[in-house]
């Protein structure tokens, strides 16, 4: 929908003369240009006194469009990328790791769904501790409910490392704790800003060696629920935009993304994931957690997975 005028500053060839020529054929924007018969346009350009320049202009616009899309990859390259860059990060919880064939996949968006106090945040905290301790990766934790508990993280890290940290181990402990970064976000625009800065900071982080391997958003639903459903489609657009941004980040920078979602009462009182049908198609992997009050055993089942049969279930305890 961008007007051709906007391109003039960068490409001198698209001068007012070219724009006037396009305008005379009812072409004002790049979109108009695309739906127009280009052969016909070139034929008209022949009849003009400045035909050479006009034809150059047409080729220029077409080549600009060509640079707008991503380069193509073949299957082997994709496989190569998957094998070398997309590792599997274990969550530190045996039941979940077994169920998912190793754990969270880098480049994928994993969603945890479950009712209140069923252990979603605990799984997030455990995964953060485990990735920081075992995989030496940095973890970014976006917290919407002040539920990030450093004390609990310290407990997990101590447990995973398997021994109490003595004087010598204190340095290691501090390094692990420093590699988990928490950011409080209370509206979706703040989240966009944080993610954007994260992307910008990626190259400098690579040089330092501390790469972000896991990004956690706990919980995405509390950011989206307040904007969803009010008049107009902007809330929906922002939700899609958020999902798209997370997936792009995951794919391009080889990060595993873990988000949490809550449940709402569906038909006949059976709980179902919140955020509706539109969001349903966004996460790669969708896991349903459920907890039983009174005992510590939680169960987890796969609702959606790109390469596994759904419906498998496992038990775990925290």
């Amino acid at each position: 929908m961008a007007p051709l005028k906007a391109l003039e500053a960068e490409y001198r060839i698209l001068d007012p003369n070219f724009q006037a020529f396009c305008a005379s054929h009812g072409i004002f924007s790049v979109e108009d240009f695309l739906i127009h018969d280009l052969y016909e346009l070139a034929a008209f350009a022949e009849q003009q006194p400045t035909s050479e320049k006009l034809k150059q202009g047409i080729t220029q616009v077409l080549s600009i469009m060509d640079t707008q899309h991503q380069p193509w990859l073949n299957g082997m390259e994709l496989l190569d990328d998957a094998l070398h860059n997309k590792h599997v990060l274990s969550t530190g919880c045996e039941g979940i790791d077994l169920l998912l064939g190793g754990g969270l996949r880098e480049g994928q968006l994993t969603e945890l769904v479950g009712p209140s106090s069923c252990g979603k945040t605990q799984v997030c905290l455990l995964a953060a501790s485990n990735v920081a301790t075992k995989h030496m990766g940095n973890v970014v934790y976006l917290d919407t409910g002040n539920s990030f508990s450093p004390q609990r993280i310290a407990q997990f890290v101590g447990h995973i490392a398997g021994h109490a940290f003595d004087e010598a181990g204190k340095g290691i402990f501090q390094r692990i704790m420093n590699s988990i970064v928490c950011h409080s976000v209370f509206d979706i625009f703040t989240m966009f800003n944080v993610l954007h800065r994260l992307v910008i900071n990626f190259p400098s982080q690579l040089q330092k060696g501390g790469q972000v391997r896991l990004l956690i958003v706990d919980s995405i639903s509390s950011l989206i629920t307040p904007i969803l459903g009010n008049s107009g489609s902007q809330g929906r657009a922002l939700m899609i935009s958020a999902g798209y941004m997370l997936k792009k980040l995951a794919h391009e920078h080889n990060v595993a993304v873990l988000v949490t979602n809550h449940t709402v009462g569906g038909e006949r009182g059976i709980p179902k994931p919140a955020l509706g049908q539109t969001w349903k198609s966004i996460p790669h992997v969708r896991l349903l957690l459920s907890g039983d009050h009174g005992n510590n055993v939680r169960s987890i089942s796969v609702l959606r997975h790109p390469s596994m049969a759904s419906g498998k279930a496992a038990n775990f305890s925290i």
Partner: protein
Amino acid sequence: MEVGRLPISASQRGKLISAGYTTLASLSSLSPSDLARDLKIPESEALEILKVASHDCRLDQPDKSNGIFTGAQTAWEMLHEEQSFPRITTSCADLDNILGGGINCKEVTEIGGVPGIGKTQLGIQLAVNVQIPVDFGGLGGKAVYIDTEGSFMVERALQIAEASVLDMSHYNELLRKELRTCQVEIQPTDILKNIFYFRICSYTEQIALINHLDKFILEHKDVKIVIIDSVTFHFRQDFEDLALRTRLLGGMALKLMNLANKYNLAVVIFNQVTTKHKEGSFQLSLALGDSWSHCCTNRVILYWNGDERNAHIDKSPSLKSASAPFSVTRKGIRNSASNHKRIKLM
């Protein structure tokens, strides 16, 4: 960064995109009058858009300083910060125990229970206890009390405050017999002075007040606790559009979270109970539905166990779920009497 992700209205966004401004970079070198002409909007509106855009544009430069972006904290820093903060005691040792020492700052704690269990009593107790001076292991802060039900009794607050002052002077005598100079300077009337009381009569007022709290606390920096008694009351009346209710409550919860984090204060929300049909039987659970239950950091449920009042931690990121008895006495919230007996027997 794309224009679609700017916090501006849908119509402005639509106008920007159809005029060809799709990225922030394209907005960076524009004057407000140019933008106003291109979008056919008043200049003041154009200025607003550019302000938002330039704010976001500044974030485009990578942080040179330390690799971690501003506003974020590492778990290491947070661990130390958390350990250094005092907690707000509930005056009941057993309850403090299961809460890990009391109500934590920077967190939103929801407390719910059946009528007459002592929710309001606990609220008044917390409003008093937050003012315990730093010398006595308290916070020396002030309290904001938002009353939606009209159940705050000032005489009762005075009673609890008097008991609290009395306790403090006892403690003083026990601990520092030789230091006579260190006297309890705080008076029960001072305690009442430092409780900021808001009476709310409709849900519109409630939302408006929570929006205003940010400004209020900026002016009264020493407010350390915000108590809402109860969040439910107005939202359970005349509300037909349940989706709207969920949205309003979700937005309100995020604002409270933001307050707790920004000013380092505790937020305590009281909730009522409702019956829920579950697996063929009716069970008591907290009101306002499933979505709301995700909104708070901690959740404590008060219930009767025989003749004894009990508190149960239903949800918390760092605490184990546990129960403890407590009682409401003339002095306020205290340890359960029967519990004392049991300890003596053992």
